Each structure stands twice: as structure tokens, then as C-alpha cells.
């Protein structure tokens, strides 16, 4: 199963390296979401306060598109079905695709968080840095798992372009909230202390564990209609 996961993840990452979609398209897109939103808000004071929320909002919207792409690869020529027909372990497929997705998300988040640290001159202390990294990892695991699970569910359906965001958006709300609050305290936004951030990690951890376990178990039955 782990070998399968490795094969699948390697395949997805190789395709990504070759097409550079994250670097050339998703990261600029996420940056744009942040900028657009800043436009809609149009107030510096407010912006500085909501920067952490924007980072995670942009990440979540990017997840929608990355997941769509990740499963478009599998369905355009019937590869997902071929994987099923070949008896490839669905848990391995799930883990592999989650792993590849998580790797791509980490890269995206590094850029977004990094940029907002610089842009908003957030004074991140050492402990804030640890909090930030932990937040990013937990949030990523959660997002990648739920993205893969629902991406697989929507993959065969018609209207999947619109079904996927409908299914994904409401479930990732806890990640948005938890990661935003944790990031705020890591940044010290609104004078929140770093220590206040840790409890939010509990939420993120529960989400990550829940969806990676449910995903690993349920991916097979869901995809294998």
C-alpha cells in the first residue's frame, strides 16, 4: 500500500514538476485573490488586520483548483478507472494523491505566508515561527485529505466542475477558522499573544486526523462505484 502511495505521489509530482502549474499558475492566482480582496475592502487598517485570514482564504480557493486539476489528470483518459480495474489499492491511491497534494500546498503556503510576513511586517518570534509551521502542516494535511476524498467523489460525476466547490467549501470552513486564528496569534495581529494560537491547533489536528482516516477508509468505496 505504501509502495502504491509512493508510486502515485511520484507520478503526480513528476507531472507537476513538468507542467509547473503550481509555480506558474496557482501561486499567482492565490496572490491575485489576496489583492482582489484588498480591492474590495479598500482600507489599509482593515487589511492589516485581516491579512492572516486572506492567506488562508487564498489557499482554500487554490485548493479547489488544484484538486480539480489533480483529478482531471486521472479522468480525461480513464486512468482512475484503469487503476481500479488493475486492483490498485484505493488506500494507496488516496495516500499517494494526498501526499502529492500536500506537497504542492506546502509550497503554496510557504510563498503566501512568507509574502504576508514581509508585506505586513509581522514580527514573528521564534515561538511564533514554530506555531506558524505547525499550523501550516496540520492545515495542509487536513486540506489535502479532504480535497482528495471529495475530489475522488466528484471525479466521475457530471457537473463536477461545480459540484466539487460546493462540497468542499463548507467542510473546510473549520480549517479556515482555525488556521486563521493561529496565524493571527503567530503574527501578533490585534495584539493577540502567541500562546492563544495553540488551542486552535487542536481543531486543525482533529480535522487532519479525521479526514485522513476517513479518507483512507472511504476513498475506495466512494470511487469504486
Amino acid at each position, binding site marked *: 500500500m505504501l509502495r502504491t502511495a509512493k508510486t502515485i505521489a511520484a507520478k503526480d509530482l513528476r*507531472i507537476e514538476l513538468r507542467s509547473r502549474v503550481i509555480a506558474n499558475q496557482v501561486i499567482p492566482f492565490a496572490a491575485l485573490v489576496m489583492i482582489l480582496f484588498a480591492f474590495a475592502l479598500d482600507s489599509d487598517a482593515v487589511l492589516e488586520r485581516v491579512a492572516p485570514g486572506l492567506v488562508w482564504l487564498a489557499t482554500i480557493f487554490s485548493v479547489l483548483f488544484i484538486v480539480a486539476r489533480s483529478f482531471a489528470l486521472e479522468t480525461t*483518459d480513464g486512468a482512475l478507472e484503469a487503476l481500479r480495474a488493475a486492483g490498485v489499492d484505493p488506500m494507496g491511491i488516496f495516500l499517494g494523491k494526498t501526499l502529492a497534494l500536500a506537497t504542492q500546498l506546502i509550497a503554496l503556503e510557504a510563498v503566501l505566508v512568507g509574502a504576508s510576513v514581509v508585506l505586513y511586517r509581522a514580527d514573528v518570534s521564534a515561538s511564533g515561527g514554530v506555531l506558524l509551521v505547525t499550523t501550516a502542516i496540520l492545515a495542509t494535511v487536513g486540506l489535502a485529505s479532504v480535497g482528495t476524498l471529495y475530489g475522488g467523489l466528484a471525479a466521475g460525476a457530471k457537473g463536477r466542475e461545480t459540484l466539487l466547490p460546493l462540497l468542499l467549501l463548507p467542510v473546510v470552513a473549520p480549517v479556515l477558522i482555525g488556521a486563521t486564528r493561529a496565524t493571527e496569534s503567530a503574527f501578533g495581529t490585534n495584539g493577540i499573544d502567541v500562546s492563544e494560537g495553540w488551542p486552535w491547533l487542536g481543531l486543525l489536528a482533529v480535522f487532519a486526523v479525521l479526514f485522513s482516516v476517513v479518507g483512507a477508509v472511504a476513498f475506495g468505496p466512494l470511487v469504486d462505484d
Partner: protein
Amino acid sequence: MTDVPAELRSGRFDHVVDVRDVVVVLGAFPALAGASLTVDRGEIVLLSGPNGAGKTTLLRACAGLVPIERGRASVLGLDVSTERDAVRRHVGLIGHHNGLYSDLSVAENVRFWGSTVGASSAEIATAMQRMGLDGRLSDLPVARLSAGQRRRTALASLVARRASLWLLDEPHAGLDAEGRDELDSVLRAAAAAGATIMVASHELERAGSLATRHVRVVAGQVVPVSGGAA
């Protein structure tokens, strides 16, 4: 090339494929309406019949890809509904789609599909060479291939597996004359080595000369054509 699975050697079952009165319903339509067919080891069975008769559905049913509403189907003595995962490990299916990743090269695709089922790199190289994919083509991304070259890649991925039961849905489609001959000789060799092969095809001359038996699928049922009862 073909590994005979333990179950096969133990002789726990009578037929490699044993489909009995199978009904498969696709969106309220009985794509299979009580189909029965048995296939034995080493046979190459040609399935022909009108468009929409249920050939594709029958092959997919043997791989556990469509839910069986009534009747039962077993492959190598394993029930395709309840022991689906075990069935699939012994089955190699090529359908109307090729299942290739267009951003990966030919070699990478064949290697990917080979490695998901644990084929050795020697087997993979042989498979590519047998389907005429060595040389210039092997490093081309699949996106740049012609239709027939893609089909060859998909077939090579299939050949790299050591399936006991080969389910081939119009495998010749898109292949050139030489490719057809190559494919036929691969299939004959596999059958001689103990594999069992089912081929759905409309090219009766070509596939008929390959097959050891010919059955027709008509309106969701299997009817015999030649060489004994279905």
C-alpha cells in the same frame, strides 16, 4: 510472461470465467439481460455482436467494474462481486479509453502501470519492445502521440502485467497492420503460457483467426456461434 496464480494450480474451480444468468443494469437499462458464458484456461474467446449488445459491459462485469444485479459471475473461482480485489489482481483489462497520463512519456506511463502491479523493469522493457515502442517514441510525452501510438502504449502497459485473464475491448482499434500482428502474436503467446483471453471486436476476419472460439453477444445475452455451446 503469465504467472499462474495459486488458485488456478490448485484446481479449485471448473472454469476460469464462469458467468451465469448475469443481469447488469446501467441507468435502468438491462445492459446484460441474463448472460451466461464459461471460458476455460488457454482459450481465446471472441465476443462479437451489434453495437450496444453488451460486450463492453460483459468484459467490465468480469473485472468487477459494474454491479451485478442478478445471477453470479466468478473469475478463477473468485466471485467478482464479493472478492473483487482478488479478482482484479489477476485480471488485465483494456477498455475504450487508454488510461494514459498525457504529461508523462511513453516509457514513464508503461513503467507507472507496470509498477502498480509489481512488474519488473525487464518485463516492462520487453513489453514496450513487443509493442514497438522502443527507440524515439519511448521518451515522447503521450500528448504528442498519434491515436495508434497511444493504443500501443496502453497495450504495452497491459502486457507488462502478468494477468491470468485478459479482457480486451476492441484492442485492435487504431493499430496499424504491423501492430495488429504484433498484438496477435503476444496474445497467442500469452494463451499458450496459460492465460485466458476474451476479446470484444467487430473485426471478425482479424479477431476470428486469432480466437479459438467465437460467441455472439446479442441484446444482453450470449449466444453461441461456432465450436460448441457458450
